[in-house]
């Protein structure tokens, strides 16, 4: 159906002109990167998948307001992150992460059972530590360390001053270090 790779800009222009089918390649292109961002924020697969779906639908509904000259993914990610922040604010239940997936994920990528066991245990402790971080800390840490965004980008994304990004990151790392010590993550 889509034989040639069209630029984001061309696809978005088509969508704006009423060709909703042109939104489909954008979904295909960005659903996995966006899922990773969402997963790191909410640490739950089902929630992350729902948030990705919501983000795409919100993006589509706001596409007329999107400035075609700007990067689409950054705009989409902003919508998704804001949505996830609202979701986390509303979320009342305690975040507890089932870690069965660790074994499943590792078994696909490695053959050494000792390495699998060690990494499984380590990942389990790291995720436990991340879950103990306040939501604000986890968000900035994930955006910085895993998404590799600059302070300016995080500041714009979260609508907080750059100085706040800096101090939150520092405090997040300090806090995580304490938690790692408690959980004996070395």
């Amino acid at each position, binding site marked *: 159906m889509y034989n040639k790779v069209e630029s984001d800009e061309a696809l978005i222009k088509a969508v704006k002109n009423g060709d*909703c*089918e042109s*939104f*489909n390649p954008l*979904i*295909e292109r960005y*659903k*996995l990167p966006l*899922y*990773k961002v969402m*997963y790191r924020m909410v640490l739950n*697969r*089902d*929630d*992350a*998948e*729902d948030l*990705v*779906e*919501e983000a*795409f*639908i919100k993006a*589509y*509904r706001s596409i007329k307001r999107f400035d075609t000259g700007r990067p689409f993914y950054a705009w989409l990610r902003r919508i998704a992150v804001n949505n996830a922040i609202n*979701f986390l604010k*509303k979320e009342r239940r305690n975040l507890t992460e089932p870690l069965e*997936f*660790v074994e*499943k*994920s*590792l078994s696909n990528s490695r053959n050494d059972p000792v390495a699998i066991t060690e*990494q*499984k245990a*380590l*990942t389990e402790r*790291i*995720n436990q530590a*991340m879950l103990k971080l306040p939501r604000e800390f986890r968000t900035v*840490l*994930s955006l*910085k*360390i*895993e998404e590799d965004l*600059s*302070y300016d980008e995080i500041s714009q994304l979260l609508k907080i001053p750059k100085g706040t990004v*800096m*101090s939150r*990151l*520092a*405090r997040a*790392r*300090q806090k*995580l*270090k304490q938690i*790692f010590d408690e959980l004996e*993550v070395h």
Partner: protein
Amino acid sequence: MKCDLPIELLSGYLDGELDEQQKARVEAHLKTCPACQEELESLRRIDQRVRDRVFEEPSREFVFTLNRRIMDKIRVAPRRSLFRLTPIFAPVAAGLLILVILINISPSKKNAGINDRVIYQKLEPQQLLPISIPEPRIAQTTTQMKRAAYHDREKALAAGAEEDRITEAAELRDMDEIETTVQKREQVVRAIIDTNGTIIKVATGNSLIPEKDTMLENELSGQQLAPPMIAGQKKQIYVEVATEAKEE
């Protein structure tokens, strides 16, 4: 850290986010402070640990069906205007659609769940009447079919489909999903009705992921509707009930 170098500077240095003056200050300090050197290494290790953690892959359903789910929702959106333009025809078409769906939806479809993407089911108005949602949260309840999601959109909305073809579209056998919503939405109430017609769960909110509303659920659960029948069988269904402060 036991010295006076702010942790923000060390963290910012690690991220390469300091200006030249701050960077020079940190580097000069690090040359003479083993504790801060150790702290910096410790922060690097933390970052690496976070980067290295195992990532949970998305589900197969997400990978293979997300596009279709989103596109189905996107494609149906423009059809809202048809109903606005044809106030007399729309209820008739909606009624026919409901009738066909009641006949055609397979009883083997999955059961409803508050957080699931499940079959939304339009109830007949007389079935909705017994729902009584207390004031002042909700003044009245009404539902109105606004859009239908089709399993095979290409068939359902063949090129040039117009208002008078909605009836034809309604006759498609592979329609598998109906969403009900309202025109003047203030707060959406979604409820699961069990096979006996009893309200068992209630959620509210306009987002795609409704929130369980314990208070409203306590007030509404147990209220009795006519048992929903789909394809001649009782079936648990998921309805979206919309509210209007004032009915016109």
